[in-house]
């Protein structure tokens, strides 16, 4: 049997791992790096470049180098996140026929699952080279907040890469799995994941290899980029004060400020003071202006203090949801580059009253966990069991546009739940069951997964008929919904199949095209 790999498909970097002899290992690429940039580009002479090769040409050929495609995957073109990316990306993002964002480089338009597929294919290749055997199956991680469409698109990307995706699991869960492997006894773990654009906190409970997610909370608007933005804002204000010049309208200057701020932020994790030096940042009638500023760690900490405190509010909420106290947590696992910041580590330590776990690398822990889940599913010797959860609440739309939640998010699967509903009009003979997914109390703000009508309800005064609606999620996350009139026993049901932004035939076309391309390469 060929081996199954675990892939952390990151926004900036990806990482592939495998479990060998009961140990999970990160697989280095041919350059010896443990992570590979999630980048794809087309060179000046029309060659397709992935990973480090693509990153190398990013500066000279920015228009034809794609990065951070994960921000776009599974979203609609009109999504604010996509619009934001359009403003910030040097490459061209266009509206696809399915209202999905597509990326145009080297005169060709790529869909987002295709880009992710190319990166996954590269990770697959890295693994095959290392293992000296073909790899056909993988477990892939996604952020906890990813919705059904985004997850399905990631699955489609796997398919395009020639991988069968056994499971999609959440990044924080994967981190906990990696931590929990080969560990006995009962423990409660908090996974604090502060990445580039989002913040996630998960609390999990572990006992003899069984891992259960107790609660997940977080903020999709908050992340390392907020830290950068605060520095930029500070520098712009300072420049305005000292030079009496407003840089806000100057996109070029802002981009340079952003890059410099990010670098300064990273450096300040190791040093106490850095110099930000940006010559010729702007010019006016009096000639060119330069920006030269000394940023201290204390300085930075004052700027971002409230952002870090904001994450702790989410942590507190997560503890409430999980029904635990901060001091009950036995181990804190840090994930994401931003957790290298001393202030973050300090506040997390203070909050939980214990130092974060040092044994894991925040960049590799997620990929390792994906490999652990792959082994747990297929390897008879592996005794781990992940009690996975639904990422989003499920329910139906009810009278007045409200959303009735039948399965709350973070509910362990497989699960069945039911509730009784009734009619709103006298002699109503049919009800429409609209199956929705999301966290809003308003039906309209949630995603419609499917709908069906239960008819033939016996005429009765409103509120009298009893219609039982049951939700069922199996271990693979497939949702089916049924409605039954308890008086007549009449029943209707649907199985909700999640769809990505591409149809099956579109995916097949892409696969064929990529196979063709592989053949061309060998010529």
């Amino acid at each position, binding site marked *: 049997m060929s081996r199954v790999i675990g892939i952390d498909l990151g926004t900036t970097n990806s990482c592939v791992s495998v479990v060998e002899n009961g140990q999970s290992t990160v697989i280095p690429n041919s350059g010896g790096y443990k992570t590979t940039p999630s980048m794809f580009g087309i060179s000046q002479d029309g060659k397709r470049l992935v990973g480090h090769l693509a990153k190398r040409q990013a500066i000279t050929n920015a228009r034809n180098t794609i990065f951070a495609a994960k921000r776009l995957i599974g979203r609609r073109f009109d999504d*604010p996140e996509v*619009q934001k990316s359009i403003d910030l990306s040097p490459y061209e993002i266009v509206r696809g026929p399915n209202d999905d964002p597509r990326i145009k480089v080297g005169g060709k338009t790529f869909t987002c699952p295709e880009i992710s597929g190319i990166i996954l294919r590269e990770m697959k290749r890295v693994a095959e080279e290392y293992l000296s055997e073909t790899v056909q199956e993988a477990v892939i991680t996604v952020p906890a907040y990813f919705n059904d469409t985004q997850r399905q698109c990631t699955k489609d990307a796997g398919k395009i890469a020639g991988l069968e995706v*056994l499971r999609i699991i959440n990044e924080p869960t994967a981190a906990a799995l990696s931590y929990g492997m080969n560990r006995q006894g*009962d423990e409660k773990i908090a996974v604090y994941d502060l990445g580039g654009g989002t913040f996630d906190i998960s609390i999990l*409970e572990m*006992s*003899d*290899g*069984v891992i*259960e997610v107790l609660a997940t909370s*977080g*903020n*999709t*608007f*908050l992340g390392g980029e*907020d830290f950068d933005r605060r520095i930029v*804002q500070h520098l712009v204000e300072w420049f305005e004060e000292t030079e009496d010049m407003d840089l*806000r*309208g100057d996109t070029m200057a802002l981009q340079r400020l952003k890059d410099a701020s990010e670098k300064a932020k990273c450096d300040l994790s190791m040093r106490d003071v850095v110099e930000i030096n940006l010559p010729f940042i702007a010019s006016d009638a009096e000639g060119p202006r330069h920006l030269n500023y000394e940023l201290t760690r204390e300085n930075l900490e004052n700027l971002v203090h*409230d*952002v870090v405190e*904001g994450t702790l*509010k*989410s942590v*507190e*909420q997560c503890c*409430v*949801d999980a029904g635990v106290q901060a001091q009950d947590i036995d181990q804190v696992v840090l994930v994401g580059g931003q957790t290298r910041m001393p202030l973050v580590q300090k506040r997390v330590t203070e909050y939980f009253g214990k130092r974060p776990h040092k044994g894991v690398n925040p960049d590799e822990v997620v990929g390792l966990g994906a490999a652990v889940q792959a082994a*747990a*599913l*297929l390897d008879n010797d592996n005794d781990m*069991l*992940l*009690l996975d959860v639904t990422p989003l609440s499920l329910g139906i739309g009810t009278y007045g546009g409200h959303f009735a939640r*039948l399965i*709350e998010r973070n509910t*362990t699967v*497989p*699960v*069945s*739940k*039911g*509730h*009784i509903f009734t009619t709103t009009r006298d002699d109503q003979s049919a009800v429409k069951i609209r199956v929705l997914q999301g*966290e*809003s*109390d*308003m039906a309209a703000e949630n995603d419609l997964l499917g709908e069906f009508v239960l008819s033939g309800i016996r005429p009765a005064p409103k509120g009298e008929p009893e219609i*039982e609606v049951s939700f*069922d999620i*199996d*271990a693979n996350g497939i949702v*089916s919904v*049924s409605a*039954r009139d308890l008086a*007549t*026993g*009449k*029943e209707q*049901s649907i199985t909700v199949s999640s769809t990505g932004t591409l149809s099956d035939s579109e995916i097949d076309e892409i696969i064929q095209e990529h196979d063709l391309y592989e053949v061309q390469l060998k010529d």
Partner: protein
Amino acid sequence: MFPAWSNGSSVLADATDHMEQVLALVSGCDGTQLVSSAAEGYLFSRIDGATPWRLLREIGGIPPEEVDACLARWLGEGWLEVVGGADASTESASETASESDAEANQAPPVDAAEAPPAAPVSIDESVLDEALEIDLDVQRRILEYEASLGRPYHELLGVQPGAQPKDVKRAYFKLSKEFHPDRYFRKEIGNYGERLDRIFKKVLEAHEILSDPELCQVQNQPAESAPEASPVDAAAVPESPAAGTTPDAEARPAKPRPLTKLERLKQRMPFKINHAAIAARRAQADEIFRAAQTSQQAGRLQEAEASIRIAISFDPGRSEFKEALGSLKIAAAGARAANLLAKPSDRMSDSELFEALRLLEDVLPYRPHDPELNERAGRICLRLEKWDEAREYIETLLIRQPESASAHTMLGRIHKEQGDLDEAVSCFERALKFDEEDLEARRALAAVRIGARDAARGGETS
């Protein structure tokens, strides 16, 4: 523990006889607890106290063997009764149940890890299949456990009534390790997959309820008196033992009394909301929102925006937060946006128009029905000749301000551009009806009429 089951399977063995048996629901049984698939639900709905077993096998949508298995199981768990002369067996069932439970009571399962199924359950050996990638012993264990899913929750988990959450959790984990479908991922296990699914869901439910003190209290009432309750009673009537019921087998009614509607609704316990957590979440959202307002008043807009977003993530259902974020975004976009939005759209350059539209699109999701924003967006789209979008904005505006002459005029212009002259004329006329002084409408109407006349003339001459 379930003599009724052995009854059922002995009936099963006598294949010719039981086919003519007519089954009926035990009163008070509504099936929520036992139906785990649509097919089973369908079968369940056909049990009417008149149709014989033989015909139930032919209802379609569910294979006859499964019908047999299902009916035998329900019969075994005491949900069904055979019409005519079944009472005796139900009676003996409850008596024997009390005996075996009494035994179990003498040697209570102290350690969850060690708790065996409360009593031997006879299973249908013919279901065992050596060809499957699952040991026969394990198959037996699965069948036994499945056959006894009707037990009270604490017995299912093998813990004592009122067990500590820690013990409940440990038992749940242990059973998960045994029965979670992922344990047999990709294994050839025949219909054991569905059985595992059913078992795990029940175990999950038991854990959920036993680890919640509030739910546990309601559910535990029958559980505490379980020793004298037949499985039928325990499973179907979680709330029936009223205060004053003595723990005495004879004192109990042989059959559960019919449930009131409220009781039946309450029984569907799985629909559970953690009100305390939601309340805490909302309170926190309010607090963060107040902090945001303080920041906003102090002019720290970025901080305010970050706080409001945190508040939204705490309580995504609250529209006032989203509105506040919308107005904050307008404020945060600063002087530039204010200038852009104040400038009449007629005097904007194309790039300014695009920028203004982007700002508006950014803000509109927060105030989708704001007439002023919609009007402005509509005007800008008109200038940019994005007719469909303009129409959408203006139609939204008209919902709020149906008597706005300028909106009707704009709609008319769109219809005109899109070639629907008749509709355009009626729009302009409507505009004039609401405001006789609307110059734009007057002119546009005249232009259309002249155009139409010219076209007509042109048609005549050619």
